[in-house]
């Protein structure tokens, strides 16, 4: 193996308006290695990789490939230099076959027939070489995500990629699928390819990489040999100080149940059961955490409970009232009326309207509350007064209700949502990913608020993919896997134990084996 690095970046800078997404980034990636890049959401990892793939142009800095200085003006140039990328959101045409997707952009000639038949032979080859089996004539929309990702890898290999960038590849995968992906990466490495793995999950870095670089707030803060570092060190590098998510709280004193879910089953628009016969109880004065790898039905569970999504069957008891979720047509407004607050998983898509003023968002969902209207008109005075009060209480900055919501930082936006939902004093609060994309200071604030909710005798249902968050806050932990609740643990559950449950190991050995084919 020669010593010339496969990729070398020197002093890369990139800004989006006022946001300095990449600051003086240096990076050296050895040929034939798996190199991890880790950092929190928004640390600038994806931007950096997009520059490498020609999706964005760097403001300044040099890129060297195999020791030669290059300009990557677009994706075509990147592909030409042997760089392939598997994007976080797959870049596939859903109603095309696998073959057509692989061939797109590498068709050989103006006529399709030749390119398609060559691709068929090459795919067969690649399948054997890298154990990447997938039916070339299947339509993408009929394939599970794991296989779709495989198609993305095949696309890159078909274009003779020597360097493969994977951007948060396991976010959508089951643990078994993720394991299989890592095996594929090993095979690729053994075949002499270079792999760049971008993730925010420490476990993955430790598991598969040879070298790891850490990014924080747009800067490259360290590069380590994986074998000579630890999760603790990396975590500290990622956040800039030693953080052990620990929330000071007294033991819970749970009382009567405020929410009881029985035999809830939810089928999505494709007809797939995403929540399967789930039952649990949330009592007043406790935080119940739902742990699980993203995509195991937690989002759908939350959406169903808050009235956005229809259930196939199941009942919900809230404050003594029993609702048949399979037949009721209750929407989010009805659920709010039953004293259920909801901090949604995705504040941009769902929790806020970015083009609205802060004070407008501070009543979104509660705009029909008589407190905010005067006859048929809305009472802007009362609405703004409420907004100012919430801004003060939650230390939302800048403290200006007349500002468009888009102009607040992630943490402050989340506080707007939290303030709105908590201050209506609901008996039950549903919370999804409360600290995603939120800075450390705000995280502590948000966690404290949730514990205060609990101590005030309310029931909190917390869904988070961050295991640390679940462990720090929950009084009881339920683990979801493949749409089912596969286990329940107490407040001091072991991380490893939860991890096994999240991987579906205890309950369902066959699922893991089945996904690994």
């Amino acid at each position: 193996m020669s010593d010339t690095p496969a990729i070398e970046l020197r002093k890369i800078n990139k800004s989006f308006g006022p946001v300095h997404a990449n600051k003086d980034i240096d990076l050296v990636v050895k040929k034939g290695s798996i190199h991890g890049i880790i950092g929190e959401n928004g640390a600038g990892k994806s931007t950096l990789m997009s520059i490498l793939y020609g999706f964005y142009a760097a403001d300044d800095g040099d890129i060297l490939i195999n020791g030669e200085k290059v300009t990557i003006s677009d994706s075509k140039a990147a592909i030409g230099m042997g760089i392939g990328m598997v994007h976080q959101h797959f870049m596939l045409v859903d109603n095309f076959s696998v073959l057509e997707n692989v061939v797109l952009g590498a068709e050989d000639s103006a006529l399709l027939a030749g390119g398609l038949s060559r691709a068929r032979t090459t795919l067969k080859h690649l399948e054997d070489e890298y154990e990447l089996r997938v039916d070339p004539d299947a339509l993408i929309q009929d394939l599970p995500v794991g296989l779709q990702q495989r198609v993305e890898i095949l696309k890159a290999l078909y274009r003779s990629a020597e360097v493969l960038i994977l951007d948060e590849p396991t976010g959508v995968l089951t643990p078994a699928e993720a394991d299989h992906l890592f095996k594929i990466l090993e095979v690729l490495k053994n075949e002499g390819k270079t792999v760049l793995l971008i993730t925010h999950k420490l476990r993955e870095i430790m598991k598969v990489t040879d070298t790891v670089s850490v990014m924080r707030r747009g800067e490259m803060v360290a590069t380590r040999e994986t074998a000579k570092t630890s999760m603790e060190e990396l975590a500290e590098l990622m956040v800039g100080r030693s953080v052990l998510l620990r929330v000071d709280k007294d033991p819970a004193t749970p009382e009567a149940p405020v929410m009881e879910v029985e035999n809830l089953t939810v089928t999505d628009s494709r007809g797939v059961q995403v929540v399967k016969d789930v039952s649990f109880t949330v009592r007043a004065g406790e935080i119940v955490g739902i742990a699980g790898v993203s995509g195991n039905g937690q989002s759908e569970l939350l959406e169903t409970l808050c009235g956005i999504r229809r259930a196939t069957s199941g009942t919900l008891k809230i404050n003594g009232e029993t609702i048949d979720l399979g037949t009721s047509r209750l929407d989010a407004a009805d659920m709010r009326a039953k004293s259920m607050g909801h901090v949604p998983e995705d504040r941009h898509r769902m929790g806020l309207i970015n083009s609205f003023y802060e004070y407008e968002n501070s009543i979104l969902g509660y705009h029909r509350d008589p407190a905010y209207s005067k006859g048929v008109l809305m009472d802007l005075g009362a609405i703004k007064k409420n907004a100012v009060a919430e801004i003060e209480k939650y230390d939302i900055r800048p403290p200006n209700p007349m500002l468009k919501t888009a102009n607040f930082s992630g943490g402050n936006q989340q506080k707007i949502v939290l303030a709105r939902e908590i201050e209506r004093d609901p008996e039950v609060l549903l919370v999804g990913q409360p600290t995603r994309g939120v800075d450390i200071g705000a995280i502590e604030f948000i966690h404290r608020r949730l514990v205060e909710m609990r101590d005030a005798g309310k029931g909190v249902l917390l869904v988070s993919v961050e295991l640390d968050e679940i462990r720090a806050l929950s009084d009881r932990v339920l683990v979801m896997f493949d749409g089912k609740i596969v286990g329940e643990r107490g407040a001091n559950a072991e991380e490893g134990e939860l991890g096994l449950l999240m991987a579906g190991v205890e309950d369902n050995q066959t699922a893991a084996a089945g996904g690994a084919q």
Partner: protein
Amino acid sequence: MFEVLILTLDSTVRLSTPLLLACLAGLYSERSGVVDIGLEGKMLGAAFGAGAVAYITANAWLGLMAGIAVSVALGLLHGFASITNRGNQIVSGVAINFLAAGLTALLGQTWFQQGGRTPSLPDGGRFKDVVWPFAEQIREVPFIGPLYGELISGHNLLVYSAFLAVPLTWWVLFRSRFGLRLRAVGESPAAVDTAGISVTWLRYRAVIACGILCGFAGAYLSIAQGSGFGVNMTAGKGFIALAALIFAKWRPASAMFACLLFGFLDAVSIRMQGQEIPGIGEIPVQFFQALPYILTVILLAGFIGKAIPPKAAGIPYLKERS
């Protein structure tokens, strides 16, 4: 009775031709993700360009070229607004319809002083009907004679090219690299972009293809079917073509059948004017005129199949900030 049928079918072919050309034009554009409600305007502009140049040069071919040039220019304007500037495609289409309606009448009046019309075309300025070999000779043969002589023979070149454009479009769409990319960019421009293909250039080629076919459609109206341009001579045909495109679910062969159906309705409405149908009475001609639109709405409502447009249609492509 057979005679009437043949004659009705014959005029169906003539009336369907401009619809079919415009419909296929829209197919290229919309398959690439650029919604085009400016088919009407492009057709009108082309009809004027063709009529004016064919009159001045007494050359139908130059007329056709001029029609195509005008239509492509309007198409490029649509592209500039909706691809380069990522403007609203519907708004841009509306603007083009206005521009074409106003400019053709205005310039027509300025240049020819006949109230916006172009003067009657001289010999050579029109595409003449092509009589196929033996059409006259076998005219008297029952069944086959009229079928061959009326229905198949005796149309102008643009009619034949419209129907030839159907298999050609199918072939381009499903058998060529351009077609693969065109279909891809209408479904997932990001996939096309990351595959190293320029979304912009691909979509521009689609609107140019659209312009060329609209040019044919417009030229057909003014220098093949008609003899000169008349103010607002498209009279909503661009919108019927749009309806046909939806009706055909953006597929070439279906587009032909949809246009034939709508052309047939038009032909029937002309033939039925003032005639009673036994047991039903006179059906108002307006009913036939409205029928294509009613059928399209019913189709759009999903009561007879479901018309699902290309996924990215109408959405300007913007590289996402991660």
